[in-house]
């Protein structure tokens, strides 16, 4: 019961607080709202019914998560649309910028490897002397 109350309280905004859910607020209103949630749960109401009850009293404002309707749809669609647009943009950019492939790189020969090792050793000696 306590856990369920908390779960519902998390998604409701304490109407008098600054951006705080009912579950986290110490205000009187939040305490009353938690009590109402508990009462309604005890009366056998479902989560949706309880949330609807608060929406009918305070409006969509009490929902921490904006609803998917005419006021909130843009919020949910915009990030997806933007991601698609940016991804296409990124793809087109990469396509257009794509130049000639590099010629295949020859594997290092034995002499090259020896030269690299020598250079590395010399560098290390320099470091040691510092």
């Amino acid at each position, binding site marked *: 019961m306590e856990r369920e109350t908390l779960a519902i309280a998390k998604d409701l905004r304490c109407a008098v607080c*600054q*951006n705080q859910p009912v579950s986290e607020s110490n205000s009187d209103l939040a305490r009353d709202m938690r009590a109402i949630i508990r009462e309604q749960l005890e009366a056998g109401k479902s989560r949706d019914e309880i949330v609807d009850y608060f929406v009918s009293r305070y409006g969509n404002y009490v*929902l921490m998560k*904006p609803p998917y309707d005419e*006021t909130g749809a843009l919020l949910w669609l915009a990030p997806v649309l933007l991601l698609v647009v940016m991804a296409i943009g*990124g793809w087109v950019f*990469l396509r257009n910028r794509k130049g000639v492939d590099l010629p295949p790189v020859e594997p290092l020969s034995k002499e090259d490897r020896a030269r690299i090792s020598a250079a590395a050793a010399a560098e290390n000696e320099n470091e040691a002397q510092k």
Partner: protein
Amino acid sequence: MIRRQHLLVPKNITMHSDSISLNLVELGHFAAHLAMIMALIQGLAPILARWLDEPRLSSLSVSASLLVFVLTTIGGATLIHAFVISNFSVEYVAQHSNTLLPMFYKVSALWGAHEGSLYLWVWILTLYTFIVTLRGRTRYPEHLPIILAVQGWLIVGFFGLILFLSSPFERLLPMFPQEGRDLNPILQDPGMVIHPPMLYLGYVGFSVPFAFAITALLTRWKSELWIGLTRRWALIAWGFLTVGIILGGWWAYYELGWGGYWAWDPVENASFMPWLLGTALIHSITVQERRQMLHAWNIFLVISAFALSLLGTFLVRSGVLSSVHAFSVDPGRGLYILAFMVVVLSVSFGIFMRQGRYQQARESINSMMSRESLFIWNNVLFTVACATVMLGTLYPLALDALTGSKITVGAPYFNAVVIPIFLFALLLMGIATQVPWRKARMEKLRSRLLWPSVVGLVTGAAMAIAYWPVHWTGPVGVALAAFVATTIFTDYGRALRQRRAQLAEPLARAAVKTVLGNRRHYGGMIVHLGILVMAIGFVGSGLFRSEITVAMKQGDVVQVGSERIRFDGVDAFSRSNYQTLEGKFTLLNSGRVVTPERRKYPVQEAPTTESGIDSTLLRDVYVVLAEAAGDHWAVHVYVNPLVSFVWNGGIIILLGLFLTLSTRRKSLKQSSPAPKPIETQ
């Protein structure tokens, strides 16, 4: 909302005349005006030099910028001095300090409210300008005046706001109170002493890349020459912003008493947006440096990141947000910052439109599977994340203004939208570091990613089974963190083996030398590790928190998660500037004690809560005394797993940054042309 109440009828008013004949604050006020005039000269000199065809004039901006910093410092120092000596003839001091306030907080009270915060903003701006001047006189002398001119105009803009609309130098004369109102008690906390300066060092830090970018556009500065300089400044700004944001979370966690550290509050979002674009920037700037691409995009990012810093200041300081941080509501100031932002944006994007074509890419992409390509996907993700946060923050304001209907965009929205983007970013983080510049060989990449993928999948599956049922973000996040961590460690192991195969060195020496020999790379990897540690902390504290609210009387024991906690009563104490009720709770598992408090400051009506926290590496026990009813107390108890990972991750990020920034630029030391780097594959 904590509203500032005007001192119309001060409590203890006395008929003081201004007894100090030469008041230092007046001197500071004068210095600030002079600083603004000097900044105007700093901004005008290169323009006049060009207009009058008198190039020597432009060096004026260099000397002016040094003076601006000195004068602004004098102004700031006199304000701090006024706080220290409790000079309540200064309205700002009278409003936000008190003779009983500890010295520590007297000094930091300067940035405890609107006027002083803005002063700190401009002070830091002049500090950055000062450092740019010192470094630039030998390194980029011909571009320095233009850079300083850009910064000069920014300083003028902010001083205009400070001196004419929200002056911290206002006096209450001839009658002033003998005692001040107090600093808002929730700001009397060590976190609040350092959080604002760090955050502002981050925000304002982006003004330096901004000034470089505008200068590069105006002077057609060659990209190889300015981008390396800009990168370091961008990293510094990003680092301060990161530290500032984490400290803000730390403060919220300790001080606000709701058991969490991040609430997607509009003010938090305001600092998070420039961070997101800054993160995109510090990656894409590397592409320009290494592969001569994305020039225009980087300039766009630099301008936008700075614009978002201004937006953050606007949102917090204008009072448009209903939030604990918006201490003042004054439309004049808001309008000014908005207008300032519009001017900065239109001028900089105007310059960008006209001059952008001179900053052009010269190279092309060789393969879709190259580091530069993957960095572009990084930029896509972070830009989308930033735009989403911006949308969610501004949408309720816009909807309210346009239609009057009020909705809430709270944490569940941001978690639902932004966390998946971050999970993609983690995946990309693991792959991109294994892909070389230009072109990856697929079979090599596959073999490099094989083990990390196995480790990641096994870890994620193990976690899903062990904690079932769990929200999907938990196992996916942990799996990705394990995947990335394995790529980092196998990569390091390979480099270490290669080094030891060539040089006969003891293991410890080789281990250190490998890291120090490639500081830029390993600095970045350590920053990535810090992010991973934080991610684990987010999963633990976000998904596995236990909490309970109970009424307890002395001797009661409550069980939360696996912790058993006994309430041992409440004692009253009187401290220097407040009264407190201190509860005592014993954690029966470990025997340790936490002491949450309820404090009452004489000047504030509502008591404030201090949470009692017992912190270990794996979990925090977090106790809040809510209110008394008879001999019972309402008590909130939270058990927050892995919160310490979030703070420790921040420390690791900082270490990585120091390592990255500790490199000297090679070209300055070597006279011979730098050899082509050899890809160690």
